[in-house]
């Protein structure tokens, strides 16, 4: 479980870095343990995303969890290069929802199923 905690922290770090890159001045993080999954929500008041960018981000976060990458390369979550950070999160979560409005901010919710 110690390792699971570090993975969750890595996912939060990666999403928070993303919010800070979007020039957010207020970031709200909500972590909830559900029956079958961990739910992580990160909401910011940054610059938000246009429809095209939003589509790219959704695609990156929705690639599907890949156990063989999660167990090893998931260690890099929170430390990885900006070009791969969100994709790394995508490989570590089972479901993702993203809502964003230009000038208003972004809300990312990801679910990591318990194994």
């Amino acid at each position, binding site marked *: 479980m110690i390792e699971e905690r570090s993975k969750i922290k890595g996912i939060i770090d990666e999403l928070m870095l993303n919010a800070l890159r979007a020039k957010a001045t207020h970031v709200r993080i909500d972590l909830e343990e559900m029956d079958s999954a961990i739910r992580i929500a990160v909401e910011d008041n940054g610059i938000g995303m246009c429809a095209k960018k939003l589509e790219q981000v959704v695609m990156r976060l929705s690639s599907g969890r*890949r156990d*063989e990458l999660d167990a*090893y390369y998931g260690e*890099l979550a929170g430390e990885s*290069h900006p*070009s*791969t950070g969100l994709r790394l999160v995508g490989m570590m979560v089972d479901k993702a929802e993203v809502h964003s409005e230009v000038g208003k901010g972004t809300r990312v919710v990801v679910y990591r199923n318990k194994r």
Partner: protein
Amino acid sequence: MTRQLELRERLTLTYFLPVYIGVLLLLALFWPSNQPVTAGLIEIIQSPDILINDYMVTGGIKATFINAALVGLAGYVLLLVTRTTISGPTIAGVMTMTGFAMFGKNVFNIWPIMLGVYLYSLARKEHFRNYVIIAMFGTSLSPIVSQFAFGYGYGAITGIGMGVVIGFFIPGLVKHLIHNHQGYLLYNIGFTAGFVGTVVTSQMKGFGQQADLHLIWATEYSQPLAIVFSIYFASFILLGLILEPGCWRKMAQVMRYPGTLVTDFVDYVGLPVTLVNMGLVGLIGMAYILLVGGDVNGPTLGALFTIAGFGAFGKHPRNITPVMLGVYGGTLIKVFHASDPGPLLAGLFVTGIAPISGAFGPIVGLIAGYLHLSLVMHVGWLHGGLNLYNNGFAGGLVAIVIVATVRGFRGRED
């Protein structure tokens, strides 16, 4: 139409690895040579395997190709059995296993390491699939099995036992050490294996056992191998273009990625252009060997297979070229010759730190390559050649220094 393309891509993704590995079996079958295959395989298995042991000399070219094919297929079957997704990292894993089975990995010495990793997954109560990548790359320490069994002369059981113990401890170590270079080194297990090899070698020296580096290096096959394997890597490009004729346009997109871990090109840009990229980087490696006047043999082919494999997992022409030129530049002003075995392999395997060039630019890449050359020529004695990914060990040290220095000036690249 799109669905058909997807089906073709899926089928190609599933079957191209065994087909390309199978070509090695055909080469073994039809290569004009009278060397006995069975005796050659026995020679390969019973050799100590510390760096550099070119199986083309030790067991003959036919036995080398058969060994490479069997080891590569073992990696592929492992993916199928564990139902692991075939993607960039696993393609790199299978290709690397295949390549290194021309100079150090064989059908005997890979299994104990993989068994050790499997036992680790059992101890952790996790599926072996979670550790299959570590098991594949962890075979970089296979020479420990052979060295204990045949080099130190403790027998096969002791060698196997050592391999299992080492394999058991690798997963924890790789997960810890990956933080040091933060994904700027593609050969993280090579970096880890360098430390493990150093610990093992130093302990054995304490008991008066030496594992000195040696050099077994084929020179007589260069010309035919250069022709055959240039066609081999070019066929990757052709296959990609057949799957999607316009996919070459996506190369610009491929080359925008810095290549840091985890850059799975199959997932990011699709299989066709990934195959084109794999072929291109393989051919760039071949061109480097030929331009510096080096030999094409087991070790250098192993390097080319590794480069091509990582063409699916982070390497592309833009990020590998500066670090390769950095090594070559170093050979012009240092005591090393670009065509000598160590510097030649450094010029090829330096591409493990290609993400440094991809992320920080070609000048930093050149400097990293220049530093890498001397380091790789220096660190081999630490692990006594027990770590086949010697360049991964040196590359990790370079990556730590460069990443820390650049970030010290620039901050994180946010």
